[in-house]
């Protein structure tokens, strides 16, 4: 059995769901960031898969490189925010940072 587009999509869906689960369930801010990375990477898998099996050009691959770059930038900013949170609350537990409650 050759490996086709549906396999990639299943993998990317699993990665997305794992990332989502991670984001939703982690109370640790870094864990959440990691979940976000998973979600981004699931998107990358989709880009590459559609690029490989769908169209004849390289748009999807270029987008994947953009996403990796954005993910790096996002991680940098996210970690900076986490450090800011830590300096303020002396914890990175997001349950403790509810000062914006209405």
């Amino acid at each position, binding site marked *: 059995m050759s490996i086709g587009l549906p396999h990639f999509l299943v993998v990317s869906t699993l990665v997305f769901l794992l990332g989502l689960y991670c984001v939703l369930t982690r109370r640790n801010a870094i864990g959440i960031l990691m979940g976000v990375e998973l979600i981004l990477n699931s998107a990358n898998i989709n880009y590459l898969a559609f690029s490989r099996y769908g169209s004849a050009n390289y748009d999807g691959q270029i987008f994947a490189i953009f996403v990796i770059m954005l993910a790096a930038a996002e991680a940098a900013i996210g970690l900076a925010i986490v450090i800011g949170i830590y300096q303020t609350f002396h914890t990175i537990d997001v349950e403790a*940072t*509810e000062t*914006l409650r209405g």
Partner: protein
Amino acid sequence: MEHPIATQSLRWIIFLPLLGAVINGLFGRVIQKQFGKNAISILACAPVWLAFAISLSVFFQLRGVAPEERALLDNVWDWIHIGDLHAPMAFWADPLSATLLLVVTGVGGLIHIYSVAYMHDDAAFWRFFAYLNLFTAMMLTLVLGDNILVMFVGWEGVGLCSFALIGFWYEEYANATAGSKAFIVNRVGDFAFVVGAFLLFWTMSAAGHGSVIFREINQHAEVLSGKTFWGMDVVTVVTMLFFIGATGKSAQIPLYVWLPDAMAGPTPVSALIHAATMVTAGVYMIGRTNVLFSMAPTTLHVVAFVGGLTALFAATIGTAQNDIKKVLAYSTVSQLGYMFLGMGVGAYAAGIYHLVTHAFFKACLFLGSGSVIHAMHHEQDMRKMGGLRKWMPITHWTFLISTLCLTGFPFTSGFFSKDEILWKAWSSENGSPLFWLMGFCGAGLTAFYMFRQVYMTFYGEFRGGHHDDHGQGHGHGQEAHPHESPLLMTLPLAILATMALVIGLVGIPHSLGGSLEFEQWLAPVFEHGHEAVAHHAAHGSSATEYLLMAMSVGIAFFGIFVATSMYLWKTWSPDFFTNLAGGKVYTWVYNKYYVDELYQETFINGTLRLSQFLAWFDRTIVDGIVNGAATVVRGLSFLNGMFDQYVIDGIVNRLAEATLFTGQRFRQMQTGSINAYLYVVVGAVVVMMVVELAWAG
């Protein structure tokens, strides 16, 4: 008359007394304190006598030229010039005004001198003379005015001075009210006079000859003929209005009521204003506008009838008065009635003639009564006098002479002037036996009441011996009887009495060998009028004239006889009259026919009731409307407030509450928990996906 002689002397006749009035009026108090009452007297008397001197020169200047040129014009300045209305401040002297000038300044001057003695004990001496001079100036303005407006200045001015002088002793309430009464009653007449002047000017202006100057009115009077106003002949309306003005000023029915009350003023005032000068202003005014009156026979009949009626009516009241001045007051009203009778029958010269003679003898009578009152320490009731002849011979003789003149004793001035009027009343085109009869009966009554007065005052026993007992402060014996007045008072009396005797000589009728010089003298003034009224000389014969003359002398003697038998010989008791018809007649006459009470009931109370009604109307209706409107506005604004408070504010508040409520609900969403947000995001995406798929499916 067309080309009057220009002069500058007339203004001084008015200006001098005016100057005296100003000086005494403004600085009199100081002058009196610094230099005494003599200074005031000189300041007051000199201008009047200077004015008399100028008047004499004016008189002789007029005598010196031909009759048709006898007119002087002194144009002082252009007073009013608006459109058609051209009223210069100008003075006009023709034979008529020159005659009045001599009377006003001459009699006025004598009365000024008399007043010096009469008013000597009065603290407000200066004020009295200021008023008196002002009055003289105003009367001269009235006489000399060359147009209606200037005349009206004088007309109102004399009314003002009359008011001030009647109420001269204003501390007493009755005097002050008498002054007000004179002023208010005169105001009624003045109003008619003004309306008449307006109507005259208006009508003449519409006809292209608008003027208020007398000689121009006379010249263009014919444009008025045939003109109507509200369906009435305009000349009749104008002259009727003028005549109403004259009844106010000259105390004729129905506006005579103020004159008897005017006796509240000092006696020289009564002599000057309320006998010799001001009250004759109405007669003079009719003489001045005789051309108009001659064009209105209806008015002339009314004038004659009212004059005759007043002459008779006032004479009857005079018979029952006990106040020495009241008798003379009603006598004045009665004699003014004769003058109007004369004017009314078109005998203008005769009316003016009686005006002049009356000025002398009535002024003398008033001054004589003043002398008596002075001697009696201001007692005016004749029942407390009597026998004064012994102690006051000069007063007695002058009073008697003037009384004879007034009663028309043969060959005195009153005889000539009154008979002239009675003769014209009978014989003139406008006359009638009725007019003659009224004058004739009045003459008899005049003789009766005047001799009643003479006998009650100067003859018989002195009945006032006790006046020292109450309050005069003199010891017994030394003031037991009155004394003759000082020379300053008796001299004017003597002069006036003499004048009263001889002044008649200027108007002796043809039938008695005279030449009616006075009538000829006034002829230039009245010739227009005589053209309109057919000349009277054609009517009646000499024989009739002698008969009428004899009859009026006869009734005068009858009146004297009745008075003598009642009050001197006492052979016939006055009770005969007082008990006539159960005393009712006497009570009526004694109470002056209750005319004052009638006026009180009708006009005064009517006015009061009207004003009370108007006050009620104002308070209830007008204020009611205003208050009602205010209440309505208040109600409306209350409703408005309620609406604002509950509806508008309610909406705003409910809106705010709703916003708050929703805000409070929505803020629950803002948990601050990142997880919660994420759940929401994911949930929303899932929902959107489901919806999308369902949609697509």
